[in-house]
């Protein structure tokens, strides 16, 4: 019975996941048998007094949905309207605490709190997964204001017979707001001599099926296998070039869809790319069309993930838009979307591949230079199929380009807490849609902001370089796992000055290291770790001004990359510009000179591998990471 319902299921649901399908089937039956229902009561009011509270009961309807964007109210999500009386100043020293609980640890509810109405900004959310039986969020009314809040409760994975109960309380703030747990540690693995020797702007991906890491370093496509039977693990590097991707390069890109195991390798070549994909980590390749028809000629990016398709409940509620979405769904047995984006002559465009990257449609405009700068960061696709592309300059802020319809149309969302920067920003998407936007601000510092509503509003914008007094940073790269977990890799230096300019005056003096900041609580707190503590990545300037950079300032090119494997372990790929003993010694000598004249100008492929600490998947916490 399960396979016959595949077309109705959300794209994140795999054919083997019959439990979810059963829940879906049941939820459809419930939706048909019972009329749409809401929470009971449907609203409540709180006053600015410690202990003021209101309770409600969920509608008790079951369902399974990826996130807030894929549920249907009254069917697999419901709404409780909460009003805070008085003015914000009345709530000094108080917070609004919202909690929902249920009984069955195999079920998973989430909630999102909007200000004003359901279309208002999401100012808090609670998206912990199985086996938690409660969800909890704190809101500060002195910041978020009083008036109406909408608590949107979503049946993430809920079988019938386990309704939730909710309580909202005005209380004193919790005293504990620090990050807890063991700080992650990291090890560096340099590519062997003769491989990855020219590795500017590397990409990296993890194949969850094979457990291997794939990385691209200009011409070299490398397969990396870690032998974990020894500790610390050893790495075996293998050159696995595609048939047409080691010939010429204007921009190298590698993308691995961790779920399907397909790796796409792309080398920019005019208005398309020389490209091929592999389903066996480079053992064999299929040459592809390369890129979207009539795409731009510069700074391409390839990404992919689930198609955005309607859930069964959405299909019932809104059949016409769902049919339009379905028309952009998979055309072959390959069930995920692949996207190609690039920029040229005043705009940036994206093209969808409905056959796993073999061919692409005509590219669709994402934005023009009137809206954002031409160059963009890399494509990321949420589990719900929403497509994201970050941009370092959209007017007075950085921006996030969002497509809710498989790359047909796009909205530019300003990252309102940011200022424009000089490095391409990066996004990581949590399992339930939380967006982590890592960027280098106008102040040169490494920042990361969080959005729970597809970039319409932002919170927790933090400078994660503070623990190391980072004054300049470059190449921000983000990956997320569970909704509450993400890692942010960047190069940083505590030295002030023009660290990413053309270095035409007095040479910039600074030592760059690679840092990884990790959150386990949705971006409220971050552990920042120097992942290259005894081996600097670069001495002197890292010019981020493209081809206008003078010789000897741009050996690292334009970006690095980060990924996560099936165990939640984080990997980053970076270009090491300082590899000789003399350079490293200077970097470790605080009184030595650290300008580009002291740097090796090397371009050596190197991987950082998380050694210990919690990974990005809570489900793997019971198996601690080993070095």
């Amino acid at each position, binding site marked *: 019975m399960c396979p016959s319902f595949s077309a109705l299921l959300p794209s994140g649901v795999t054919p083997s996941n019959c439990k979810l399908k059963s829940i879906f089937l049941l939820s459809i039956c419930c939706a048909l048998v019972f009329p749409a229902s809401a929470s009971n009561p449907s609203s409540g009011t709180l006053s600015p007094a410690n202990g003021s509270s209101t309770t409600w009961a969920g509608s008790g309807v079951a369902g399974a949905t990826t996130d807030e964007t894929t549920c249907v109210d009254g069917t697999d999500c419901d709404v409780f309207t909460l009003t805070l009386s008085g003015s914000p100043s009345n709530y000094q020293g108080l917070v609004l605490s919202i909690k929902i609980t249920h009984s069955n640890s195999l079920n998973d509810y989430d909630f999102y709190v909007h200000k004003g109405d359901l279309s208002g900004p999401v100012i808090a959310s609670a998206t912990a997964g199985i086996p938690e039986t409660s969800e909890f969020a704190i809101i500060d009314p002195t910041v978020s204001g009083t008036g109406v809040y909408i608590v949107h409760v979503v049946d993430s994975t809920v079988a019938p017979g386990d309704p939730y109960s909710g309580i909202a309380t005005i209380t004193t703030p919790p005293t504990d707001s620090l990050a807890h747990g063991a700080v992650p540690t990291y090890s560096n693995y340099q590519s062997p001599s003769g491989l990855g020797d020219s590795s*500017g702007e590397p990409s990296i991906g993890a194949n969850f099926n094979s457990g291997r890491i794939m990385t691209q370093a*200009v011409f070299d496509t490398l397969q990396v296998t870690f032998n974990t039977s020894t500790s610390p693990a050893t790495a075996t590097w293998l050159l696995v070039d595609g048939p047409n991707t080691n010939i010429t*390069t*204007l*921009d190298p890109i590698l993308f691995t869809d961790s779920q399907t195991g397909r790796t796409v390798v792309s080398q*920019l070549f005019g208005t398309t790319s020389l490209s091929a994909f592999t389903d066996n980590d480079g053992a064999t390749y299929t040459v592809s069309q390369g890129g979207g*028809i*009539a795409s731009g*000629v*510069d700074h391409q990016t390839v990404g992919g993930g689930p198609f955005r398709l309607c859930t069964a409940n959405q299909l019932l509620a809104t059949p016409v838009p769902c049919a339009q979405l379905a028309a952009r769904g998979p055309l072959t047995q390959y069930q995920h979307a692949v996207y190609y984006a690039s920029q*040229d*002559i*005043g*705009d940036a465009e994206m093209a969808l591949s409905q056959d796993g990257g073999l061919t692409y449609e*005509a590219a*669709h*405009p994402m934005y*023009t*230079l*009137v809206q954002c*700068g*031409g*160059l963009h960061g890399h494509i990321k696709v949420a589990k719900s199929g929403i497509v994201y592309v970050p941009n370092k*300059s959209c007017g007075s802020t950085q921006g996030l380009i969002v497509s809710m319809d498989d790359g*047909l149309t796009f909205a530019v969302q300003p990252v309102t807490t940011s200022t424009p920067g000089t490095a391409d920003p990066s996004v990581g998407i949590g399992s339930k849609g939380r967006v982590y936007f890592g960027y280098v601000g106008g102040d040169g510092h490494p920042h990361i902001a969080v959005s729970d509503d597809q970039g319409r509003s932002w919170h927790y914008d933090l400078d994660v370089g503070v623990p190391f007094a980072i004054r300049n940073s470059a190449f921000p790269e983000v990956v997320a796992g569970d909704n509450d977990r993400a890692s942010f890799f960047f190069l940083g230096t505590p030295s002030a000055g023009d660290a990413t300019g053309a270095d035409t005056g007095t040479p910039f003096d600074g030592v760059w290291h690679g840092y990884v900041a990790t959150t386990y609580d949705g971006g409220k707190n971050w552990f920042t770790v120097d992942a290259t503590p005894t081996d600097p990545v670069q001495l002197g300037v890292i010019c981020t001004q*493209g*081809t*206008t950079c003078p010789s000897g300032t741009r050996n690292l*090119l334009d970006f690095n990359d980060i990924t996560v494997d099936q165990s939640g372990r984080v990997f980053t790929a970076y270009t090491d510009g300082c590899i000789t003993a003399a350079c490293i010694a200077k970097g470790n000598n605080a009184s030595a000179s650290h300008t580009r004249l002291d740097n090796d100008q090397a371009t050596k492929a190197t991987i950082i591998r998380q050694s210990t600490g919690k990974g990005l998947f809570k489900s793997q916490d019971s198996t601690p990471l080993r070095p």
Partner: protein
Amino acid sequence: MSRAVFLAFLILGHSVFAVGKQPAPQILGLRLGMSYTRAHARLTEIAQFKSQDEGQQVWTLSHDKHYQYVIIGFDRDRNVRYVTAIARPDGQPVSYADVGNLADATRSGGEGNLRYTWKANDKKARLEYLAIAKGKDSRYLNQYAIKRLGVTNEDDEK
């Protein structure tokens, strides 16, 4: 009778004209290959500078009834490499056929994402170029660009 002949002449004449129509290597007086200085002189006549990114500039057109913005990019020799004009949403629409003979263009995309591309040659200036009209509408364009072929982008990589 004479009126019918006149109409036939008009239609035939228009067709003949359209068949021979090649998109011009200039938009709003901004010609491909034009020097940076001359391009700026022209731009300051018709527009106000808005922003710059990677050497590409956005200008807001002051009084043009068709277009709202013009975007311009230069090559390594600081000559005009491309010009893109963005249609004014509430302005006088420009049809794809206004740009060039559609029979000579390559049509790509589809409903909601149309694109006509002409490959053209300016023999006098000895340059090859593309003219590209894009739009969501089946008849009117949203943006129109001309782009020189065979020149190096200011920002070409590696």
